[in-house]
């Protein structure tokens, strides 16, 4: 029997399993919820009845041969990839699997500095060494951009032994690099291209979207289905092209992925893939209309700048994701983080993040015009009631990293904890980042510069959540002793 995008083999197998009323003497111990009535009341019987373990009719995520295999094949087809892997440890694990599939200890890997922490985490685990490309900065907005093609070319020329290039497609703010050209350069130099498409699921389904990794010949891509595609939090998909050996990639995934893959997460991937394959075009057309409407109304309020495709410059901003509602707030005298907190505390509106100069609202498959109206009205009120002169706000965001040693050597090296103000000129052994967006200000193995310290202190003062350091208050930092 041949399957089409109208099928959802994993969903169908779970429905069948539920009908069959199997007596379970396996894990999980709650036995379809019978052993935890409080959880059943909270999550619902429907949900608990399919929170089950791998078994013959339901396949096994570590070694898929039947319904999971079929569901993954349909996902691969929907995304135009050679193979797809369902990931239940988040897109972070997909990013790690990409890096670990192509790098081993001591290998170089080229990446923009504004990668998500998961990429650098992968380097701590596998011992590869980052070669950072300065993503450039939009001075007015204070946001890091994409990688310029000539900067990637230079990094490749200077590091011909590098194994791969990582590209964000798009960045958290919606900025895309010239992926097609970067793939060409990297492949000419014998390097793989790994694409972090955590925020790019919709590129594969909507019209008038930036180019998706699998369409331009990239080798691997990590897709956060849960971010804009509608699946459950923590469920993701790793895509690979014909250039990769799927069996090797599966082995790499199985090094760190759970052997008890959640069927709730996996079925949500199967169901969401079907929805996007069948309705994605219409869904993301609507999402784009909502985001464009929000942008134009917010720009009419004055003071805010909801930016979009006008930033495109053919290079560091090769393209822009129109579904991202990124808003520059500094001209009303408020840091993005302050607007973020006002929205949540005063207006009961939770947005994705606020940084020093901007906020980001994610518009996705679940949004309606009513909520966009609330956001616009709340921003209008925040401007009316809270705006201040915009002087005195820090106007810089990109901090050039000075890499002294590999993240792995730094992380596992001899270290001492020092008060953060006494760390300038020393080598940091851990991460410091605002979360979200989770892009490191400092990564293990980097010099603590005056700029980095100032930025950390300023972000703390503005109320940003800083994390990554062993000291959860980020009052002290781990510093290498030798």
């Amino acid at each position, binding site marked *: 029997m041949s399957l089409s995008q109208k099928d959802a083999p994993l969903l169908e197998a779970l429905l069948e399993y539920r009908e069959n009323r199997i007596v379970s003497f396996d894990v999980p111990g709650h036995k379809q919820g019978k052993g935890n009535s409080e959880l059943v009341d909270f999550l619902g019987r429907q949900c608990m009845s399919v929170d089950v373990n791998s078994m013959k009719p339901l396949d096994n995520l570590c070694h898929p041969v039947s319904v999971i295999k079929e569901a993954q094949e349909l996902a691969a087809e929907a995304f135009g990839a050679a193979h797809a892997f369902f990931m239940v440890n988040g897109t972070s694990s997909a990013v790690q699997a990409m890096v670990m599939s192509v790098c081993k200890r001591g290998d170089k890997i080229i990446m923009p500095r504004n990668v998500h922490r998961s990429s650098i985490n992968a380097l701590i685990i596998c011992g590869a060494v980052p070669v950072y490309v300065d993503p450039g900065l939009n001075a007015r907005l204070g946001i890091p951009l994409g990688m310029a093609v000539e900067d990637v070319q230079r990094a490749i020329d200077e590091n011909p032994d590098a194994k791969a290039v990582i590209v964000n497609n798009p960045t958290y703010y919606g900025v895309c690099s010239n992926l097609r050209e970067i793939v060409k350069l990297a492949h000419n130099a014998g390097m793989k291209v790994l694409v972090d498409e955590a925020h790019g699921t919709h590129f594969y389904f909507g019209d008038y979207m930036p180019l998706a990794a699998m369409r331009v010949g990239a080798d691997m891509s990590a897709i956060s289905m849960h971010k804009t595609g509608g699946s459950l939090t923590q469920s993701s998909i790793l895509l690979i092209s014909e250039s990769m050996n799927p069996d090797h990639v599966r082995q790499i995934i199985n090094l760190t992925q759970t052997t008890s893959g959640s069927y709730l997460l996996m079925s949500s991937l199967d169901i969401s893939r079907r929805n996007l394959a069948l309705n994605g075009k219409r869904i993301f057309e609507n999402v784009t209309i909502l985001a464009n409407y929000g942008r134009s109304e917010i720009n009419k309020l004055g003071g805010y700048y909801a930016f979009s495709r006008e930033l495109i410059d053919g290079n560091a901003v090769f393209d822009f994701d129109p579904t991202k509602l990124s808003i520059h707030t500094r001209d009303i005298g408020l840091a993005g983080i302050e607007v973020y907190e006002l929205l949540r505390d005063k207006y009961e509106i939770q947005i994705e993040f606020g940084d020093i100069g901007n906020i980001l609202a994610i518009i996705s498959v679940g949004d309606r015009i*009513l909520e966009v109206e609330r956001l616009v009205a709340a921003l209008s009120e925040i401007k009316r009631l809270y705006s201040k002169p915009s002087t005195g706000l820090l106007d810089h965001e990109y901090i050039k990293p000075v890499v002294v040693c590999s993240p792995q050597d730094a992380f596992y090296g001899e270290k001492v904890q020092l008060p953060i103000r006494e760390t300038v000129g020393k080598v940091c052994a851990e991460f410091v980042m605002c979360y979200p967006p989770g892009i490191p200000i400092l990564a293990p193995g980097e010099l603590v510069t005056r700029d980095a310290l100032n930025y950390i202190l300023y972000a703390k003062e503005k109320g940003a959540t800083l994390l990554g350091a062993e000291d959860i208050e980020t009052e002290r930092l781990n510093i290498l002793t030798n």
Partner: protein
Amino acid sequence: MELWYTEEQTKDVRFSIRCDKQIYSAESNYQRIEIFSTPEFGKILVLDDRIMLTEKDEFIYHEMIVHVPFAVNPDIKKVLVIGAGDGGVTAELTRYDTIEHIDLVEIDRMVVDACLEYLPDVSCKLNDKKVTIHIDDGLRFVRGCEREYDLIIVDSTDPVGPGEGLFTQEFYGNCHKALNESGILVNQHESPYYAPYARAMRLAHKKISDFFPIVRVYQAHIPTYPSGHWLFGFASKKFDPINGLDAEAWNRLGLKTRYYNTELHKGSFALPNYVLEQLN
């Protein structure tokens, strides 16, 4: 066959009305709209499984939401009505000759059309020449107004579904901005009795209090609304609704009402202790 409309007022309480027949049923972009004819209450309008009005008791709600502000400020000339696509508020408002203009903002055109066709006794004044109907999100409309209105009436559904935006901080703030110096905001303020409604009541009161110096709550008895005990909010930049009552002026108008009178006006602001405790 017996046909009953049953409303789940809370997950543990149901309220039923025997129906003769279903007159209208449609799904709009925002909600499910139904009209039934019933022996006890006449025709009833139901949105998303909630009774919005019945022909028999709508006068209570509409008289109380309109006449209270007019008895405090007889000079109201420009009015913004949000929600109220059924026309009940407009029917009361247009009885005041002194009104110059009414903007009515209803998000759902299908509600207006259904009421014009099937509830003509309630909706009859929607086509009055003083009334301009805007099919728009109330939150969006009010955002664009500044110091324009003497009175804003918020005739919303409950704060779930399309009415949600009308119970928010950003909405009340924008209403404050849209009212002039003597402006009054009157809103449907939910019920103090069952927990989910009482929660909405408390939150609305707290949010309105952030913007207006004078904030009061008054009550009416509406048989078909959950618990029958319903509240309205009165917020103003200038007028106290009790001390500021101009009973003489209002009575001189000679408007015939079935529920409202100026003695009841005063009494409606006297709230039970359990309600006061929740509001303070």
